[in-house]
């Protein structure tokens, strides 16, 4: 697959002297969905704004489909669509006119059929003649998405697209994202809903304090860091792990009603079979067994804690 977005050693120091990006490298393949996770103030919006031309990088190089975003900004920006984090919209204007404006700004001639299609897709067609200020927050978010899609971009940035959007519409939005992906659109989204990244991303990037901590395929990440836990419910409570089982990574639950075993589900052997046999030998009776795999959320929280 070809690289559509390349960010090389980009730094950004704001006029206030604050260094919001400290040497970011990022390569994005055409057609993939990357979810960018990071706590508040990590630099997600700054990174997106820098790529899209809203702020200028202090150093480094960014290209979009091979076009430098500074020297060849027209070609680079033509390809990009941006849904900003803030609900910035002209309040007194009709929905459909703001979308038409966006299309024009990006150099495309009128195409009412296409605009109708995206407004319908985003359930905004009924509201096309409403003034923006008459819309709810979630509707405004969707107007921003319609604007970003109005010029048929190849790369789409979604800065917290589902903030303030209800569950049902969020699912609809994921569907729109899936459809865009199937049309070959590359999508970079930021989110604080980690289940969202889990649900739709191909790769996950984690950024904190202006540095990218990792970018990995979602499945690899979950496998690599995915520790599994086996919880063994006991018939009779124990106060501590029996001596004969001390070699296992095992601990008793707080109330002593269960033993908890941690293992790596990708390791050559999980040790579960021998553990269960040894439990029997130790004379412990089990009433139930459950396994639990750590979610992306837990992985994310651990990672950010480590670097804090």
């Amino acid at each position: 697959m070809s690289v559509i977005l390349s960010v090389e050693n980009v730094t950004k120091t704001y006029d206030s002297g604050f260094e919001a990006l400290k040497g970011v490298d990022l390569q994005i393949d055409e057609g993939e969905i990357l979810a960018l996770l990071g706590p508040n103030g990590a630099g997600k919006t700054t990174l997106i704004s820098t790529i899209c031309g809203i702020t200028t990088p202090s150093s480094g190089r960014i290209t979009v489909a091979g076009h430098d975003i500074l020297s060849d900004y027209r070609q680079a920006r033509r390809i990009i669509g941006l849904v900003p984090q803030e609900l910035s919209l002209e309040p007194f204007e009709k929905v459909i006119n703001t979308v038409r404006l966006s299309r024009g700004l990006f150099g495309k001639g009128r195409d009412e059929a296409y605009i109708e299609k995206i407004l319908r897709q985003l359930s905004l067609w009924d509201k096309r003649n409403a003034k923006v200020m008459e819309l709810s927050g979630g509707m405004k978010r969707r107007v921003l998405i319609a604007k970003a899609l109005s010029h048929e971009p190849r790369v789409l940035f979604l800065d917290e697209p589902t903030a303030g959007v209800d569950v049902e519409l969020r699912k609809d939005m994921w569907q729109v994202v899936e459809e865009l992906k199937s049309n070959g659109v590359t999508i970079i989204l930021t989110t604080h809903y980690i289940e969202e990244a889990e649900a739709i991303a191909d790769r996950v990037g984690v950024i904190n304090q202006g540095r990218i901590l990792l970018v990995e395929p979602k499945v690899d990440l979950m496998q690599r860091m995915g520790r599994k836990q086996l919880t063994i419910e006991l018939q009779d409570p124990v106060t501590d792990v029996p001596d004969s089982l001390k070699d296992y990574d095992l601990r008793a639950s707080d109330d002593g009603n269960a033993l908890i075993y941690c293992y790596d589900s990708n390791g050559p052997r999980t040790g579960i079979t021998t553990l269960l046999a040894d439990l029997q030998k130790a004379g412990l009776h089990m009433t139930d067994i459950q396994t639990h795999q750590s979610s992306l959320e837990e992985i994310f929280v651990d990672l950010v804690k480590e670097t804090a």
Partner: protein
Amino acid sequence: MNFQAVKAIYLFEMARFFRTLAQSFLSPVLSTSLYFVVFGAAIGSRIDQVEGVSYGAFIVPGLIMLSVMTQATSNASFGIYFPKFIGTIYELLSAPISFFEIVIGYVGAAATKALFVGLVILGTAYFFVDLQIAHPLAMFAFLILTCLSFSLLGFIIGIWAQNFEQLQLIPLLVITPLVFLGGSFYSISMLPPVWQTITLFNPVVYLISGFRWSFFGAADVGIGVSLIAIAAFTAICLAIIWWIFKTGYRIRS
């Protein structure tokens, strides 16, 4: 050149104007009528003629200039300040357009609106006074140049302003006084000699004088000087805009 974008900005800005067309039309008609009642009737009854023209007719060019200058400035400054204020400027900054295309779109729309107001006032004036325009082409040229140059000035103010107070500041503290003192309602030859000299430092004098010449064929200062003055003013505005473009001043951090 991204013509689609210039067109999109221009039409979007004009749409704001058309939404409030009645207001855009009525307020200049009303204010012009008031000026004619107050200045024309009250003062005009005491001043018979200025430079061989009836006082009512004499003030028409100044009246048009007064409105055109303030309208052009406030339209253009508001036009670019508003997106900054509500945050929609992100779209202009991320679109494949150059700064000059943004300027053409906004300044073009602001100048069009100012021109419209100028023509409405001219039309209204015909109801009150007997008007003959000596040099119609020159009149239009002056009018359009003034619309454009003051829209450029307004654009600069809109970029510079960081709040609504600053947005009003220059029109209120600089433009309005300069226009009032620039011979809108009198000929500078009516002033005491010292004030005549001081007045010559007011750039607006040259604009109004040149515009008045296109109506009546007579002026306070030579028409050549007027033309140089408006050309210089436009050039200064363009230079400042070029500098804003180079530095990204107050638009792109």
